[in-house]
């Protein structure tokens, strides 16, 4: 892939933002030559612009209770969903779940939202999840791994088929240099985090108003009651508290060091061990 930086566009009136500095932002467009299929197409990408899609992926497993047999004790579902249960089909084209080889056709392809797969089984194994994006988003796939968990941590009570075993992971898919088309398409979509561009910036392709024919989000999903609500606030608070503590210690130590340096220095021959 070859590309060249060609253009810097300046925003004339930059709204005074508390977040960004007052100087005009340069959005550089990179024109990339796509080498695929022998056709050289020029894709214009936005440099220093990052689009991220928060997702949650994992498994939910129900014990079958009385209907359970040796080979089929649980019914489980593996899925990839938007972290806020919005429709991620706008970014993701299809998801491929690679199951244990003991399953029939262990490579399962899900072509549309909701990107989930249900199966019955008895064993726990690692599921490989490959996410494929739309052509204007990214032509490389993204691979994730998740361990299917059927049995809860505490094996104390009898297997209840009411409460499932849910294991979810949160992550964000980041697109560092999105194409203009992609940006225009998703800039108002709830599932996608898109940075604000300077006011005077003009996108080449017109913004499509996504007509939601079918609601493909997971808000009304039968499992939605068990989905974890991932909130960054908790973690941020914890991190902020930790940082404060560490910073306080640093201040104390610095004070101590300066006090020590104020003390008369010994003319010790072995003084050369000062670390910097």
């Amino acid at each position: 892939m070859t590309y060249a930086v060609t253009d810097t566009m300046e925003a004339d009136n930059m709204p005074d933002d508390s977040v960004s500095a007052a100087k005009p932002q340069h959005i550089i467009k990179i024109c990339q030559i796509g080498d695929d299929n022998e056709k050289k197409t020029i894709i214009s990408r936005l440099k220093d612009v990052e689009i991220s899609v928060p997702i949650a992926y994992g498994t939910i497993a129900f014990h079958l209770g009385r209907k359970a047999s040796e080979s089929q004790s649980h019914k489980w579902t593996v899925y990839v969903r938007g972290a806020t249960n919005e429709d991620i089909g706008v970014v993701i084209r299809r998801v491929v779940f690679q199951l244990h080889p003991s399953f029939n056709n262990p490579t399962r392809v899900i072509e549309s939202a909701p990107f989930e797969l249900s199966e019955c089984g008895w064993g726990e194994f690692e599921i490989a999840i490959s996410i494929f994006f739309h052509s204007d988003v990214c032509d490389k796939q993204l691979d994730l791994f998740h361990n299917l968990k059927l049995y809860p941590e505490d094996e104390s009570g009898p297997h209840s088929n009411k409460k499932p075993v849910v294991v979810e992971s949160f992550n964000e898919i980041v697109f560092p240099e999105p194409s203009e088309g992609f940006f225009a398409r998703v800039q108002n979509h709830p599932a996608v985090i898109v940075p604000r561009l300077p006011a005077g910036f003009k996108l080449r392709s017109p913004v499509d108003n996504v007509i939601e024919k079918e609601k493909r989000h997971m808000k009304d999903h039968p499992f939605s009651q068990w989905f974890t609500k991932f909130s960054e606030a908790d973690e941020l608070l914890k991190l902020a508290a930790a940082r404060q503590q560490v910073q306080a210690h640093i201040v104390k130590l610095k004070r101590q060091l300066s006090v020590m340096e104020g003390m008369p220095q010994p003319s010790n021959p072995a003084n050369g061990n000062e670390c910097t």
Partner: protein
Amino acid sequence: MDAKDILGLPKNQLPIAQEKKSRPQKETQRKPDGVSREVYALTGGLAPLMPSTDVSQLKKRPPSDEKITWQWLHFTNSARKDNLHLYHWVRVVNGVPPTGDYSFAKYNKSVDVVKYTNEEYEKYLTDPMWTKEETDQLFDLCERFDLRFIVIADRFPSSRTVEELKDRYYSVSRAILIARAPSPGDVSVHPLVKEPYNVSQETERKRALSMVLSQTKQQERKDAEVLAEAKRIAEARMAARAAEEHVLPVASQMGLESSQKAVVHGDTVSPSVNVQLPSIAFAPSTSVMADSASTLASLRMLMTDWKNFQLRVYLRTYALEQMVQAVSSSAGLRTIKRVEQTLQDLGVNLKPKVPTKAVCAEHLELRKEILTLLNLQKQLQYKEAEGSSYREGSYIDMPGTPKRSLRGENQDRTFVPDTMSFGGDRVVKRDQKRKGPGRLSEAPSSPAHKRPRKLKASDM
């Protein structure tokens, strides 16, 4: 079958094994009918690619009305000039021997080497570099050896290169052709006239060819790389030129130059970094940067500018891992473990549960601050160790002091525990290790040992 079931082996044989079994069976079945089995087996059990004779011909018997005898007869060969009489077996049909020339005579081909007369030589063919004798010798050899110039060059009495000989021969032939032709138009189609032999080009070509053939593998690889770079640069220039039409030409010239510089820089760096992970090659530069802004910028560089590892998509956790690795690259394994221990003691997950952009940034900053903290602790320990060893006047006065005081310092350093309430279980281990060598100064070191501890206790 049951045994296989018990062992858990697949009931069906593997497809490859099946193929092997069926193939040898097929081959013996396909033995052709006209040939006996042993004879066919001589060929290795496989039919020849192109059968020389039709199989049906093998079983055919000559028609019964013909009477075949074989006779030892004399024959002549038109390819020979010496009238040598030889004999061979001849298939005679009904008493009539076959007619016609010796069957191999038609393969006696030769080259038509031009023959010039002396007058022609005088008129057209004189050359300062060549005497008539040499030219005659050359032509004689050419005829004898059918224009095999390597042999001719070898046999030529005076040493001349193959190119020189070729040049002389072709120019003479050309001159003669043109001279003898009734009109120039007739001969212009002749290949000799149309494309004359070019000595310098030929020598150059052969030299280049030998150079290419004698290149080492490394050189070949380098050449391939250089060509690839050149192609990329050329394409980038083309892209820039094409893109100019689409976009307003605001400072486009500057953009072009900087892009070319960036492309070249990226290209020259990339071959050396071919197989390495970007973070490893990246580490030396990040250890210099201290700001969060610069590390963000460096992460962007990591993710976008490296041509070999240009990531169009990545997970936030992956980015965080790379950044953590970059930041911790200057620290040893022990320090990294201490950082992780500190994080745990502070109640922070080693890998954030909700890795959003903000959370990851905070996490990274926290790690960096912990590193700073640990470094400060170490500094403090060293300072105190120096200070405390000075205070111990007694063992400074003993003979052989400098070494011992050094050792004492070392001991002090190791005996001082980690200052924070969280962490520091390695103290015990170090104690035990150091007891060996420093036994003499064990007693004096304990007061020093106590004092740093006191200081630390007051911190809490």
